[in-house]
């Protein structure tokens, strides 16, 4: 049984469009009360078909092939779950460093295994992305996100939004119109509302059992130019699609910053002493920048409003992709294309 979700993601500034198809698999990753699936990840080795994967859709295929694809899907699901947990870390008031490090190590471990399996290399080759530096350590990019403003998120919001979310079949007949409307709305909206919405849409891993499936991701590109997608319509779109997109957005963003910004995640924990002088100077310099566009960009790239940004962030934001004048530039879109490819290699499973 399959559920297919087709999402049209449109970039308002470049008027380019990418269709993303998700094929949903039946639930096989459930809460702790699920009896029927013990020992899912208890072994890091490939599992035999007889281990009880009869819920998988590829029933008709024979033995090892199914087992390895099942294992890959499991692994992929774990990777996605870990990435989302890392995202969620940033939304919390006080991120727990130990937890973040453990999740990041798990992500690295999965990546390394995928690299050894060759599935990573295959993906990156097919997408034309360069070799080892880019494939190295999704965790690095993922972790190189600046902290989100905790002040804009109330605990209540977080609690409210950790309810279970299910995939739903969404149709986007009028997606283009909707995107335009949404983007216009986004520019006008209060930044804080955006932040909280983003948080609410991303908050997933929680205490209760929830069902989500990574599925397979197929990207069909309308244009060669793919820009960062705009925020999808509020309210009734697929939660997990947004998460994927936000992954993309954020990882596009972060790949630019490379090593310097890994420190941001763990750097949130540091008291930045002594650099306040330069910080305030830069902030003054950009205090008259049109906040709405700037915040739109930062919003899309997973960064939140200005007060949270440390000195490195300000320096990075000086780059052309962030200034208000860069919206609509094709150069920006081309670099984003590479970033999107990079994101694909993270999200695509086998």
């Amino acid at each position, binding site marked *: 049984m399959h559920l297919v979700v087709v999402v049209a993601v449109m970039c308002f500034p470049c008027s380019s469009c990418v269709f993303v198809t998700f094929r949903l698999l039946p639930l096989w990753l459930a809460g702790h009360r699920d009896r029927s699936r*013990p020992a899912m990840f*208890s072994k890091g080795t490939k599992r035999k078909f007889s281990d009880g994967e009869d819920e998988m859709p590829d029933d008709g295929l024979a033995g090892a092939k199914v087992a390895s694809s099942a294992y890959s899907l499991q692994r992929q699901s*774990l990777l996605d*779950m870990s990435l989302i947990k890392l995202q969620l870390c940033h939304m919390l*008031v*006080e991120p727990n460093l130990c937890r973040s490090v453990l999740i990041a*190590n798990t992500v690295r471990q999965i990546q390394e295994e995928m690299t050894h399996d060759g599935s990573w290399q295959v993906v990156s080759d097919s997408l034309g992305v360069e070799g080892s530096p880019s494939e190295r350590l999704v965790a*690095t990019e993922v972790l190189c996100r600046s902290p989100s403003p905790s002040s804009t998120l109330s605990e209540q919001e977080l609690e409210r939004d950790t309810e279970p979310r299910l995939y739903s079949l969404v149709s986007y007949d009028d997606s283009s119109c909707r995107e335009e409307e949404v983007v216009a709305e986004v520019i006008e909206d209060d930044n804080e509302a955006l932040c909280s919405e983003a948080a609410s849409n991303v908050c997933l*891993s929680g205490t209760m059992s929830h069902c989500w499936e990574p599925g397979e991701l197929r990207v069909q590109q309308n244009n060669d130019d793919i820009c960062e997608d705009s925020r999808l319509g509020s309210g009734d779109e697929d939660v997990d699609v947004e998460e994927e997109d936000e992954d993309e957005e954020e990882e596009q963003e972060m790949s630019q910053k490379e090593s310097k910004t890994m*420190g941001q995640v763990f750097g949130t924990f540091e008291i930045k002493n002594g650099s306040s002088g330069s910080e305030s100077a830069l902030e003054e310099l950009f205090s008259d920048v049109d906040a709405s566009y700037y915040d739109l960009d930062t919003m899309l790239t997973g960064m939140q409003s200005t007060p949270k940004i440390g000195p490195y962030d300000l320096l990075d934001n000086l780059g052309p992709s962030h200034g208000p004048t860069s919206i609509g530039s094709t150069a920006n879109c081309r670099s984003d294309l590479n970033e999107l490819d990079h994101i694909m290699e993270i999200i695509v499973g086998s």
Partner: protein
Amino acid sequence: LNAYQPAHSYSRCSENNMSLRPQTPGMQETLSKCPSRIVHFIVFEDCVRAVLTYICVCVFLVADIISTVEFNHSGELLATGDKGGRVVIFQQEPESKNSPQCRGEYNVYSTFQSHEPEFDYLKSLEIEEKINKICWLPQKNAAHFLLSTNDKTIKLWKISERDRRPEGYNLKEEDGTLRNPNSVTTLRVPILQPMDLMVEASPRRVFANAHTYHINSISINSDNETYLSADDLRINLWNLEITDRSFNIVDIKPGNMEELTEVITASEFHPYQCSTFVYSSSKGSIRLCDMRAAALCDRHCKLFEEQEDPSQRSFFSEIISSISDVKFSHSGRYMMTRDYLSVKIWDLNMEKHPVETFQVHEYLRSKLCSLYENDCIFDKFECCWNGNDGVVMTGSYNNFFRMFECGSRRDVTLEASRESSKPHMVLKPRKVCAGGKRKKDEITVDSLDFSKKILHTAWHPNDNVIAVATTNNLYIFQDKVN
């Protein structure tokens, strides 16, 4: 400051040849002072005959989630810290003459607000007031001292009793109003009159601004002058008298934070070697350091690490090997570590592998993925030794806690719950059915409640009295006295 909810009060029942005692007025008053107290005796069926038959003595209903529990060095006082930054100290009643077999019960002795929520303006993050650790200082005089810490700040508190006050001042009346000096004709020396016992807690030292990351441990040294505080990446050595300076003795922060893969999870001083301490990491290793070797103890003297079983390897291996607690034995010869699924006893002279391993809840090994999903896999369970280092105790889910006897295969699983803690009820030790047919009275793994977890337990240093903290209740158990 009344952190406790009112609850029922039960009359004290007795077992065997003890007579039923009516509620005396004194007892009524005691109960009204700690309104949430339930006092009754329950007999646990004797399963592990050597030591481990426990009776529930007191149950305290608390308003906030308990985050740490510690007995002091004599066992007379029991301190709990909660998520709201409060410290509540219980005191054991002296043994009463009427029922000499029973040990004294614990009453609320003092309650004070230790830490307040703060806001870090540089990072725009809140600093939680939750008390992460309490550490008692050995008693030197009539007052009691303890260190309490939240994520960033350590405070030294003095808890003192006042049962007398001076009366008969010359220049002021009894109610405090000033007297006209001209009306004083005779002089007298003020005398101390007895008054109702008042317990005061006052902060004596505040050790702040030394930790960038979240403090997870504090440990007083055997020299009674210094103590260490450990956060995720650094350990600092303090002098109790000096608050504006601390020495950094361990720093595992990498130059490039990208390379961070390991954090410090717990740390403790050796019970009598004042230069030795250990710290555990999220990768399952424990390092023993000697402060005499170097000023910065980045290079360990001993590294305790067990090679993992390759057949058990999974994506979660590292997470479940992360050590959540490390405790020296009272003798100083052994130490105990708690990781997610097991408790390990190490001989300090043997680094390769522990001398004993106890599986706390092995039935969870097949559920690791679900536990990762709901974040339970990151729960930090604590562990403790009993007074003679013969038994260790740790918590689990579903309000279960487990005791293991060292050197033998005996262990017991007990439950701390209000339903099971009724008067005269014979409580059987619990058993979790890992698979296959469920026997009567067994509990299946799937019916375990993972929101009910016992993370904090403490054992009286000299006696078989234990304190077990569930989410909202503090249970005090003592063993059945025959």
